[in-house]
């Protein structure tokens, strides 16, 4: 008989998901699905709008990573204008992208995931959030919140506002950077670097503490996809696509991001509004791949900043004999390494005299009827693909968003965690199991609506189904 368990209080969020867990006749888990049951529709309603409005409109897709949509949309615009943007504009866009990484990664680690790690998966859900974390370790949490503030402050200084700045435009950026503001940003660097080191230290302790559980947190081999620089380094704004498999074989390399659609397809399932991108040569669903920090740190040959490169080598040592870290739990580790890289690289960019240049925007009219923009958003590689008419009016838009590209892997992770932790014979889901499923999804730091983000708890709906489809147990949060 089905039974409803209510967990209260529920932290309000944007983004809705449901999980179903299917049991066989012996009450063992045979399938588990991660359903995203909301629809945004940006691809459709931007039809008929102007190219120059697209960065401003598409940045509204997400309240956490608007700068990533802004930059990627502007790059698609550059492509349609057929311009090479000024050096200063590119460096400023790079700075914005790294600030976006920093604030989003800090949010994922400190605000969303750290409560699970530091307070425990089985701790009281009423306090298993950032407020509980503040009570447990005020200084650590405060530092994390300030690290995010640093990223947000860069975005605000560059674009005039922290969220949804329309500062990046086709052809470049709108305002140059003033010297005093550059210096203001530089004062943050020492504190930010120390905070990321603290996060890395804390994470390494977590790795030891949960050594028995981690192997079941999405530990499987998939393709890994991301941008690398022209000489194979960690990349976030430009470069080529590289595809590796879980055994460190390079499946494809030096793919022009503009050719993404030749390599990746998007499948649709009736039970989720989130599409299922896959690597075309391997077909669906075998072409499952992962993007984001885990993929990026795995596939690059090196990281150009010294502290992050040293951490990358330690990260790689976790992989055993295949030289690829396949466990999704280590997304958190890769994310912290990227935060370290972001802090170091932001300092390098700020100390580059070209960042203060005043030539920042190339002007042109419509010179191509199709354009593709690509950059690495915090959660993975992001594509904006537009078709316009000769007046610059959007005829068709395709947005390939990072969270969607992890969809197959997130489903696989849910299945693995459910199979390991759910004892179907008991026909019962405990709070601890629910939280482990949630934590498995959170490894990917998904942006379910790609508009904003789970804060504290996701509104999960988990159903336990018998072989006959009967709801044995159901949990809402």
């Amino acid at each position, binding site marked *: 008989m089905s039974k409803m368990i209510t967990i209260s209080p529920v932290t309000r969020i944007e983004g809705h998901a449901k999980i179903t867990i299917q049991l066989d006749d012996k009450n063992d888990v045979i399938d588990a699905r991660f359903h995203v049951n909301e629809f945004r529709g940006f691809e459709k309603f931007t039809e008929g*709008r*102007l190219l*120059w409005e697209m*960065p*401003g409109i598409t940045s509204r897709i997400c309240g956490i990573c608007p700068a990533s949509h802004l930059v990627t949309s502007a790059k698609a615009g550059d492509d349609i204008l057929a311009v090479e943007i000024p050096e200063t504009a590119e460096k400023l866009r790079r700075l914005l992208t790294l600030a976006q990484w920093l604030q989003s990664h800090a949010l994922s680690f400190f605000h969303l995931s750290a409560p699970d790690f530091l307070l425990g998966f089985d701790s009281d859900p009423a306090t298993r959030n950032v407020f509980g974390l503040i009570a447990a370790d005020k200084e650590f949490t405060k530092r994390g919140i300030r690290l995010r503030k640093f990223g947000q402050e860069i975005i605000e200084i560059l674009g005039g506002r922290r969220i949804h700045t*329309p500062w990046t435009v086709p052809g470049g950026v709108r305002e140059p950077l003033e010297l005093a503001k550059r210096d203001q940003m530089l004062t943050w660097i020492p504190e930010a670097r120390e905070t990321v080191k603290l996060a890395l230290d804390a994470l390494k302790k977590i790795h030891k503490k949960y050594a028995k559980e981690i192997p079941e947190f999405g530990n499987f081999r998939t393709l890994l996809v991301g941008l690398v620089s022209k000489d194979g380094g960690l990349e976030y704004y430009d470069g080529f696509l590289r595809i590796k498999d879980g055994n460190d074989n390079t499946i494809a390399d030096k793919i022009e991001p503009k050719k993404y659609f030749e390599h990746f397809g998007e499948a649709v399932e009736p039970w989720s509004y989130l599409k299922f991108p896959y690597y075309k040569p391997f077909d669906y669903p075998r072409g499952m791949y992962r993007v984001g920090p885990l993929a990026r740190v795995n596939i690059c040959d090196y990281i150009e900043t010294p502290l992050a490169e040293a951490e990358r080598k330690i990260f790689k040592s976790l992989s055993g004999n295949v030289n690829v870290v396949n466990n999704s739990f280590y997304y958190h580790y890769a994310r912290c390494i990227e935060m370290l890289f972001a802090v170091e690289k932001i300092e390098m960019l700020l100390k580059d005299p070209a960042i203060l240049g005043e030539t920042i925007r190339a002007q042109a009219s419509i010179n191509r009827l199709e354009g593709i923009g690509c950059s690495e958003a915090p959660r993975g590689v992001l594509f904006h693909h537009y078709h316009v008419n000769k*007046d610059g009016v959007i005829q068709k838009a395709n947005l390939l968003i990072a969270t969607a590209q992890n969809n197959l892997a997130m489903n696989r992770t849910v299945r693995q965690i459910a199979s390991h932790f759910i004892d179907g014979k008991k026909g019962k889901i405990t709070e601890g199991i629910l939280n482990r499923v949630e934590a498995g999804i959170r490894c990917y730091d998904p942006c379910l609506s790609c508009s904003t983000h789970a804060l504290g708890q996701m509104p999960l709906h988990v159903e336990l189904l018998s072989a006959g489809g009967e709801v044995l147990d159901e949990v809402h949060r």
Partner: protein
Amino acid sequence: MSVITFTIDGEQYSAKEGDTILQVARDNKIPIPTLCYLEGLSTFGACRLCVVEIEGSQKLFPACTTKPTESMIVHTNTVKLKKYRKMIVELLASEGNHQCAVCVVNGHCELQDLAYEVELDHVRFPYLFPKKSLDATHKDFVIDRNRCVLCTRCVRVCHEVEAAHVWDIAGRGIDCEIIADLNQPWGTSPSCTSCGKCVRVCPTGALFDKGAAVGEMQKESGFIKFIVNARNKHEWVRTAHEEE
């Protein structure tokens, strides 16, 4: 020239013959909201935001077209007027597709300013979400009819100042819309001189420079009075008031 003495909000003012209530109010820094009115252009009285109460009449009168008479008693800021002005802005919001967050004039829009002025925190009427067209065929400018409030400033400036008369209104009632020449793509208009006056006087993001991004378009409509003065009076002087 005869002088008329009348009362606005309890204070006595003098008006020259031919002055409107709005002109006297503006000269004496009495705030009355306007939208379709623009100094230098003919008055049209379409938006009704400048309505005032006149003692002795149940009707509301547009200040931009109503001339004061001797001993007239005018009220510009009553509870009733506030209610109607707020309703007008609500109706304007509900019958167009005004998405401030992604609009080229976000932060520099007269309609948006009005919404703040009348303290519009929500719209009580159902949004109509009309299907309106966007015309980007002109090489320099765009008209997005989704954001048009039919103030006709563009029609009047093009006819009265530039003398090209590109713009007109087609349709009736809710279906009214601004058209170029014989309802053709703006880029094909033989009468348009590409002067951009219509873009500068448009109070919303309906007319804007091609290439402008969100919030990037800032307009300046004070130049109209400068041009008209220069033409009529041969005075090429900008006063501080006009530059405001």
